[in-house]
């Protein structure tokens, strides 16, 4: 090689001359590559040097890089994985996000050519493209701005187009893509935006041109990740083990006499009130809210002091702990501020701790990440579920919802159904059914019914399936009464059949499937009796259903099923005049019993109502129009308040322990438990209006002529 680098550099920078034709460039690169095998690395190292430049802002560097990449695309067959390892690793480290469109195009061309040229590079190319799903860390924040969004669209459209180009040249490439994408999914402890972006790409793959092959693995992988996030969240939004660690407890249990049951009731009410005050007080900014919240805390302290003075007893420490920890976890932004205020304002701390015998540790020790992590996981889950909802909507508008639903349903049967008390992931299926009630909605109900009736399935699966069925049919507004009636008929027939073939006494464990079926029947009727009775044909069908023999059988389901369900069912049945034998209600003297908790087994599947109101803010707003709430169903007589929430492990959930006169409806309960603010002022987490704004902006940008945008790329020259 006679020519030395100096002359070439000059030639490279004189792009306008066009003396250097493409062919000559390619020859030069080819010679440089083959020279490496003979030991001459000079030109080759220079080439690799061009690729390493990241901060190439001036047009010359950009042109150089682009030319290099294009020349390399023309010589891929000469690239050897052993001799040219530094070249390949330099290309691997290049991220599309760092460059302008011309270099992006050149790089993509190189990747596609490499993939098609040699089988060894297919996995390498696919991995490189998958690496570009998320931007480098320093660019993550810029994504929130309009320029960031534009960049994202440019990069992702090219990445997905590259997948399709590779699929045309190498038909088996999509098969190899699925495992790569699934393996590289970010873990649940990664940052929220990273996970979101990656899942967005997965969904794009699912609906893209190669979606037929790749899509079958994408959705189940996403659902698996949702479940993983779901199980990290404790029942009331706290990470179970960290919930009690915020304030260190003093071991003063022995001091309290056991006889303050009444006091606890009173304190319960006081705290309910104070807590509701805190969460729903109107405030335009955190500071104002904080002032009010601190005011509430001070008031509580005063009351406690008074109580101590009057009764000589301090309120139980759990109550004090509940206020603050709940505030922190349900309303993260405000709660955190309150906690820090308490920590900082020593007088307030002293008062608080003195009155509630809680020992507040100083400073940031309790504002540690792990404690508050429970809430960030909930946020991540919320955003991911929202993303999935949007994807389902787009599937529906493009007419693919049916196939996507089949994949989703299979994934549901394999993972969600048997996941121990999955809390929110099942709403993905709920929403899909809501979007297409006639097809998907009916399919879901039928599949669940068949799973329950088939005795090939293990008992836990059957019990779980019928719990899902009952909760789904009760809560789905879009399900027709006729469907409910037909499913009820099938359940009743199965139960009757079971009764007739099992002539044995009440045994919660042995007949758990039967009891779960009966409870499902009763639960569904609690919600749906009214609508069924309103339609004459369905009313006849309901009255003809042989429910009495089932309920009066030796197996005695009324004693075993959950008391709240049974009581409510009987109340409604009496009002609707079912089971009227000789003008007296057949079940007038049914007593509750302790056996009711026994049939659920270790998973407490007896108290499992999967489609209880969703506690995640963003997702709930999508579900709300299709979701039937309990409070709206008025029966004659007092409103018994929440039926379903009490189904959870009610032992330590004090906010739910209410007596009949509380009249706290579903809406309120949800807002108390999840800090769901129906007040838009406090709803800073809302993303919907922002999205619309950004979309609008994007559309505007798309119409801007290219000349106005300052461009440093060679094509504008």
């Amino acid at each position, binding site marked *: 090689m006679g020519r030395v680098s100096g002359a070439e550099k000059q030639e490279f920078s004189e792009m306008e001359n066009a003396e250097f034709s493409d*062919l000559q460039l*390619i020859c030069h690169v080819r010679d440089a590559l083959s020279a490496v095998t003979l030991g001459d690395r000079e030109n080759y190292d220079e080439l690799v040097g061009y690729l390493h430049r990241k901060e190439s802002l001036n047009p010359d560097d950009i042109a150089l890089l682009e030319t290099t990449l294009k020349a390399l695309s*023309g*010589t*891929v*067959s000469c690239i050897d994985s052993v001799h040219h390892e530094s070249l390949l690793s330099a290309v691997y480290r290049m991220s599309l996000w760092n460059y302008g469109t011309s270099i992006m195009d050149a790089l993509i061309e190189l990747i596609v*050519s490499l993939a*098609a*040229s*040699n*089988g*060894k590079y*297919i996995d390498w190319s696919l991995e490189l493209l998958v690496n570009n799903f998320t931007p480098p860390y320093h660019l993550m924040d810029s994504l929130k701005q309009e320029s960031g969004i534009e960049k994202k669209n440019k990069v992702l459209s090219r990445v997905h187009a590259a997948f399709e180009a590779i699929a*045309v*040249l*190498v*038909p*088996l490439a999509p*098969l*190899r893509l699925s495992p790569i994408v699934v393996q590289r999914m970010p873990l649940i402890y990664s940052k929220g935006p990273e996970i979101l972006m990656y899942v967005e790409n997965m969904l794009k793959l699912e609906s893209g041109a190669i979606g037929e092959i790749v899509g079958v693995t994408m959705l189940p992988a996403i659902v698996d990740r949702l479940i993983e996030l779901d199980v990290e969240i404790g029942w009331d939004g706290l990470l179970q083990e960290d919930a009690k660690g915020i304030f260190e407890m003093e071991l003063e249990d022995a001091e309290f006499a056991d006889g303050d049951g009444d006091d606890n009731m009173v304190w319960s009410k006081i705290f309910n009130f104070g807590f509701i005050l805190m969460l729903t007080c109107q405030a335009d900014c955190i500071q104002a809210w904080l002032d009010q919240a601190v005011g509430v805390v001070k008031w509580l302290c005063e009351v406690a002091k008074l109580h101590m003075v009057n009764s000589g007893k301090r309120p139980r420490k759990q109550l004090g702990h509940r206020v603050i920890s709940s505030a922190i976890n349900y309303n993260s932004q405000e709660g955190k501020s309150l906690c820090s205020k308490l920590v900082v304002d020593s007088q307030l701390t002293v008062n608080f701790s003195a009155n509630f015998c809680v020992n507040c540790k100083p400073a940031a020790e309790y504002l540690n990440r792990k404690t508050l992590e429970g809430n960030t996981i909930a946020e991540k889950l919320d955003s991911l579920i929202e993303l999935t909802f949007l994807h389902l909507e787009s599937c529906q508008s493009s007419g693919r919802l049916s196939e996507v639903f089949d994949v989703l349903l299979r994934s549901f049967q394999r993972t969600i159904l048997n996941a121990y008390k999955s809390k929110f992931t099942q709403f993905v299926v709920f929403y899909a059914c809501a979007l297409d009630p006639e097809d998907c909605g009916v399919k879901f109900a039928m599949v669940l019914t068949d799973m329950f009736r088939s005795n*090939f399935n293990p008992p836990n699966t059957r019990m779980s399936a019928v719990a899902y069925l009952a909760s789904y049919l009760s809560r789905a507004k879009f399900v027709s009464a006729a469907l409910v009636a037909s499913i009820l008929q099938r359940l009743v027939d199965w139960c009757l059949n079971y009764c007739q073939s099992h002539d044995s006494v009440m045994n919660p464990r042995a007949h758990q499937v039967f009891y779960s079926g009966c409870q499902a029947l009763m639960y569904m009727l609690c919600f749906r009796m009214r609508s069924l009775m309103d339609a004459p044909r369905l009313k006849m069908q309901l009255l003809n259903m042989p429910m009495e023999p089932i309920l009066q059988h030796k197996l005695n389901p009324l004693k075993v099923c959950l008391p709240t369900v049974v009581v409510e069912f009987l109340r409604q049945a009496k009002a609707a005049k079912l089971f009227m034998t000789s003008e007296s209600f057949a079940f007038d003297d049914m007593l509750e019993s302790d056996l009711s908790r026994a049939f659920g087994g270790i998973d407490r599947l007896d108290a499992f109502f999967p489609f209880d109101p969703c506690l995640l803010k963003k997702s709930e707003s999508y579900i709300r129009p299709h979701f039937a709430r309990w409070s709206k169903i008025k029966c004659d007589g007092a409103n018994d308040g929440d039926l379903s929430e009490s189904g959870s492990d009610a032992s330590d959930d004090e906010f739910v322990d209410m007596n009949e006169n509380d009249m706290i409806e579903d809406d309120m309960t949800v807002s108390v438990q999840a800090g769901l603010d129906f007040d838009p002022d406090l709803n800073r987490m809302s993303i919907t209006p922002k999205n619309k704004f950004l979309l609008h902006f994007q559309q505007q940008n798309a119409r801007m002529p290219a000349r106005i945008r300052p461009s440093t790329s060679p094509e504008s020259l």
Partner: protein
Amino acid sequence: MEGLKVSNANLTVYLHPSKSRDASEAILRELSSLLFTFSEALDGVVLAYDINSLDNKAAKILSGVIPYFGVPLSVDLLLFSPKPDMLLEGKVVKLSQESIHVVVLGFSSAIITVKDIREEFVYKTKHEQDVYASKSHKRHVIKVGTMIRFSVKSFDEEILHIYGSLMPDHTGSIHWLEKHSELISHTNKIAKKRESEGELTTVKQDAIDGKISPLDSVQKIKRSKKQKIQEES
């Protein structure tokens, strides 16, 4: 086209006990997992299978922690095993100055680099289309969408990628070759072609009969072992 053969194999498919309720579906699923993968025991990429008969012998249950049971089958398999110097046919999907990209049978990608394309073909851009045109025969043109016949240089079994060559004389656009085969005036060339064709047909015949190798029994054992390993993994 060479490289395709149908062979009959006696396989044993090992099924997990949970599948015993619906064994036939499980068997189909196991066989489907073989598709589009290269099998050393069968010496080829399995493209299709057809179950001849489920031998009515009973399935033997293996002893072990999980008692798999082995169902003996007799299956017809369509195998694709390109060997060097075989002639294959495929559709051109991309042309560049450096290479021609071909897709064979819709699933296998093949690449013919410029150094394996004979001097006769020259890269041109005609009517805004990239083509490889023959210098000696004006109408012999290869462009995107043309079906071409090429010879195999090597075959990457893992990714099912073929490295091809257009060096031999009787390679190129199939359409043109079929139409102008008689124009190849040189008697030697015709004689050679006839000879090679004769060989091809005998090979094909043997393949269809399924009695190629006398090592059938050894292959059977190899296959069963391979199945067992596949099932257990």
